[in-house]
């Protein structure tokens, strides 16, 4: 009786020691340096780097989501991004905080610009060019519409403009074309 119990304890103890050693070894040997989920979440986020989520950029927010932060804090991404995040994290979709605005692009009224470079420093994607006491301008194609440059401007010369419709971004919405059919004759 006692011998069989002793054998059982002994066997289990040996097994436990073995598996413990194995797990310990593999945790060292196959250590993942960075959580790959952060990269995936970062790829879903819209990269406006606007900080509306309360984090200094999309990557920090992705990191925060991986650590259990709410997924509803990205207004530029809107519902679609929130749903993708929910799917990736395997959690329920959440009510979006703030509302999705149409994408805007910053524009500097150059006659008002005094060349203070404050907006240049504020831009998270280096989309504003200009140097001290020289007029600044926004590279429209690189602007993410984050609005971070608007507040620092001491002369309020930066305006957020909607993106102009052209033949490249036109979406074949035939019903929105202003109609002027010639029917007099």
């Amino acid at each position, binding site marked *: 009786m006692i011998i069989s119990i002793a054998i059982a304890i002994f066997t289990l103890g040996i097994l436990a020691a073995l598996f413990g050693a194995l797990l310990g070894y593999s945790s060292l040997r196959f250590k993942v340096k960075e959580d790959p989920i952060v990269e995936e979440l970062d790829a879903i986020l819209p*990269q406006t780097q606007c900080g509306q989520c309360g984090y200094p950029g999309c990557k920090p927010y992705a990191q925060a989501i991986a650590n259990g932060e709410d997924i509803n804090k990205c207004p530029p991404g809107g519902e679609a991004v929130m749903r993708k995040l929910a799917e990736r994290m395997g959690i329920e979709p959440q009510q979006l905080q703030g509302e999705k605005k149409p994408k805007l692009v910053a524009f500097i009224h150059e006659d008002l610009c005094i060349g203070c470079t404050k907006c240049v420093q504020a831009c998270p994607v280096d989309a504003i060019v200009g140097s001290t006491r020289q007029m600044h301008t926004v590279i429209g194609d690189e602007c993410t519409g984050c609005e971070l440059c608007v507040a620092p401007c001491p002369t309020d010369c930066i305006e957020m403009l909607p993106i102009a419709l052209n033949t490249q971004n036109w*979406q*074949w919405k035939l019903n929105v074309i202003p109609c002027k059919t*010639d029917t007099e*004759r």
Partner: protein
Amino acid sequence: MTTKPINLLSEEQLAAILSGKTGSFHGGIHPPENKQQSNQNAIEDAGIPPFLVIGIEHKGHIPELLVNVGDPVLKGQALSKVYGAMVVQHASSSGIVSAIEKRTDLHPSGLPILSIVIETDGLDRSIAYNKFSDYQSQATPILIEAVQNAGIIGLGGAGFPSHLKLSHSESTKLLIINAVECEPYITADDRLMQEYGDEIITGINVLQHMLKPELTVIAIEDNKPEAIAALNFALHKSQQTNILIRSIPTRYPSGSEKQLIEIITGQQTPIGKHPTELGVVMHNVGTVFAIKEAIIDSKPLVSRIVTITGDAFHKKGNVSVRIGTPIQYLLDKYKFNAGVSQKLIIGGPLMGFSINHGDVPVTKTCNCILAPSLQEAPEAPAEMPCIRCAECAHVCPAELLPQQLLWYAKGKDQQKLEEYNLASCIECGACAFVCPSSIPLVEYYRVAKAEISSAEQQAKKTEIARIRFENRNARLQQAKLARQAKHKEAAAKRQQQLKEQNGGEDLIAAALARAQAKKQAPGTDSSENKSIAIDLKKDAVAAAIARAKAKKAAADSRQKNTGDNREDAVAAAVARAKAKKAAADSRQNDAGDDRKNAVAAAVARAKAKKSAADSRQNDAGDDRKDAAVARAKAKKAANTDSCENNKTTDPRKDAVAAAVARAKAKKQAKAESKHTKSAEPDNSDVIAAREKRKEQARLHKQQKNQQADSKASGQTDIDNKQAADDTKKARIAAAIAKAKAKKSAQKEQ
């Protein structure tokens, strides 16, 4: 296109084509042709409109302009430079540039693009054309450049720049001239072939020279017998045998590039690949004519043939229209009579798009203006749900599943749309034509395609934004590190300077060492001694330095003093000289100059006084310096002394140690009183322990605590044991007593 094609047509396949074997594509439809309305009359000139609007923007790219507002231009004059793969735009008649502004483009969106507006003068003066003397002696790249400079793009409808299609000469097996014109109503190519057969054959010869194909096939639908006859006649006249004219059965959409290749060669172009993969190059017959004009006559593309048809036009036919002519001008000229809910379609009824007003210019891709009456093209019935009859799949020339694509397009499932090869859809409209539910399928596909492309653009932009953000962060991080390094370097430099100032001794390091020594002081005696010794040594060094300094200062002051003395001597000498001079003067002059002498003497005195005072002041300053140095030394010495004092005796620490010892003793006493009632003489032990601890009070605090702890616990253990032993003994004694009592009782009994 840079990769080498691997599916090139073989010699046998080319032989099969030569022998008259044709293939066929999947599906296709037979819509009413409606071609005879416009193909009966000869091509006429549309005339010179009052103004021309020539769009120069292409996909958001604007080439460099060669004209300004107010410049006079001639017909055929280049308006823009070559920009990337974009072709040059030309003025299509003479006049004056009246504006360079955004004007509505001939595009389904009706959005404006940057355009050059030319007010015509009606003279139609042309630039002088420099013709190639002999194109066959010219190198192909020069001819390709000439084609680009002539502004030639595919005139069949898609408008692909022709010079790009001419740059594959090394692997071209088969040249196909697309004269199919399968879309209903359009007869522009038909009339062109009927009237310009010879020119087209010449144009084909130019292409053959540039591409060097093994075989050339002209593909024409069999509903254009006059055109076939005209080309046969022209070919016969030119006595060329390497050009085949292939009449193919009329079926829509045989004019589509990949479908026509399948008909001619029996081979399908792989999905996502160019026909160059098969070694096939295809050009529209209208483009061939334009290339002939460009190479043989050096005329740029300034006009094209447009079919004007539909019952809303009073006059129908094919007209040669200058590029940039406003459509309104053509509507007026060909007596457009708008009916109720009139449609104005650019292109054919199946692939064309509607425009909403006539203030748009004719472009190079505009092959037809169709204004059908309501009887011809009734209002489309309301869209009904898909019944999944699969009629669309039967007719789809690209062998797609239009019903599935519709389903996913409605659900905006872009991944599924790509899986079902939406990109292969040629938007021919055959599916919508046969749909019993009147679903405008192509509209859905176009919207879905636009959404996919904008999603791709967005993804690209997102990726760029991410990279730019990361680069910026990396740059800021680098700048921060650089700044820190700079600060560090500056600090080191300052320290070095300070060291040099202090005669080679690092004061900070010395101070740190002292602090360290102070910390280590309450350690073992030997280390204490050592640190003290070090301190003493340092003090000696410092004292020596101080002495050296004092010496130096003294020497300085002495030097200064001697300098002062010298100065004094000089002053005295001056004064003496002056006095001498004054004496001489007085001797020379009168004795009445005593006053002067007195003044001079006074001045001399004052000067002597002053110099003396100066020297005194200097001395005093030096003295002060010396005193300050001495004070500092004294202070330092005092400090080190106090340090030593601290090291040797620290009354506060002793007090703490004593208190701890008392607390321990109390605890022990408590434990003992709890365990045993028999009061062992523990007090002596406690006192002994306290004495012992007092002896070791200068040892490290922690060490001491540990020691005390272990001792105390050992003590209590011993006490416990003793107590336990006592009780045991007592019990044994009691038991023995009881047994004895029992025994005695038994004895008594």
